[in-house]
């Protein structure tokens, strides 16, 4: 499965009122192209921090499902954050990692996730559950299981290398992204 296809399928399977944080690079651009909504936050810089942003959000919005769209390069860059997620134990935190063992946005240079299984790292850190969808396996059933159970959970999805030609860039200004997300997250009640 291509990464763009996997991102679109996960976006389509999100529970109602879910809030999503996407890592920088192609994954955020793919979510923007295939499933944009005010409840999506696209991190365009700060590589490695998507799970930390998602955790901060999950802790202060415990009634909302928080889903982090992450990549293997991002997870590896700040792997200690997996420990923070596990230690916090937020039941509303879901971590979907699109793993192509490559830095897709910079030209598919190898990472090390083919030798360092990130789902097992998450499980060892103390995630409540961590599962892997291997290349070619169906995604729908594991996604249903993921969102039906309390987090913190990781679903690692093996995806093909390569980028969708002509994929868009996030067109909104960063502040606009933050403001519309805050409104969608209920952060502006009573006012911003």
């Amino acid at each position, binding site marked *: 499965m291509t990464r763009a296809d996997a991102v679109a399928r996960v976006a389509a399977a999100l529970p109602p009122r879910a809030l999503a*944080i996407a890592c920088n690079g192609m994954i955020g651009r793919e979510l923007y192209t295939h499933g944009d909504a005010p409840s999506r*936050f696209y*991190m*365009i*810089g*700060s*590589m*490695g*921090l*998507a*799970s*930390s*942003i*998602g*955790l*901060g*959000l*999950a*802790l*202060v*919005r415990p009634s909302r499902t928080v889903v982090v769209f992450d990549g293997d390069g991002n997870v590896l860059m*700040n792997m*200690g*954050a997996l*420990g*923070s997620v596990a230690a*916090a134990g937020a039941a509303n935190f879901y971590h979907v990692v699109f793993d192509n063992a490559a830095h897709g946005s910079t030209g598919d240079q190898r990472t090390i996730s083919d030798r360092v299984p990130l789902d097992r790292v998450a499980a060892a850190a103390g995630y409540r559950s961590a599962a892997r969808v291997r290349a070619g396996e169906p995604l729908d059933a594991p996604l249903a299981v993921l969102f039906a159970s309390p987090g913190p959970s990781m679903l690692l999805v093996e995806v093909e290398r390569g980028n969708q030609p002509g994929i868009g860039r996030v067109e909104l200004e*960063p*502040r606009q*992204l*933050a403001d519309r*997300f*805050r409104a969608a*997250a*209920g*952060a*502006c*009640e009573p006012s911003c």
Partner: protein
Amino acid sequence: MLSQRFLDVLETNGYDFFTGVPCSLFEGVTRILDAEPRYGYVSAVREDAALGLAAGAFLGGRQPVVFMQNSGLGVGVNALVSLHQIYDIPTLIVVSWRGQDGRDAPEHLIMGAVMEDFLRLLGIPFRHLAAATLTDDVAALTATMRETRKPVALVVPKGPLQ
């Protein structure tokens, strides 16, 4: 005790999410944050991760404070410039001044010497915390932070918060 008063002043100024990485120069504050669950203090693994947590908390409606040693400014710089400063995420950074006046362990001397210039270079307004002016320092920095919606820093010397 000044550490408790400092936390009270932060709360009075609207801060309601606390995270960071400890330093001995504000050991008194972290001791209280660790001991009292009502603060919800999140002990972060790195300073950039703390800034990420703070950004997430802001997106969820909170007003964050991030505690760090000045060595952590180097770890946090990409989060500051490519997350907080571009998305307009207001955050109070409470940063210790290890290496002040060139008197400290070797690993702190270079950052200690350049820290103020470093903050200026990044465009982060800062004040030096002093016991006598603590309330005004926090209020003034908070006003700047709210007006600009950008991170600001309160520099903590050796002494008052230990």
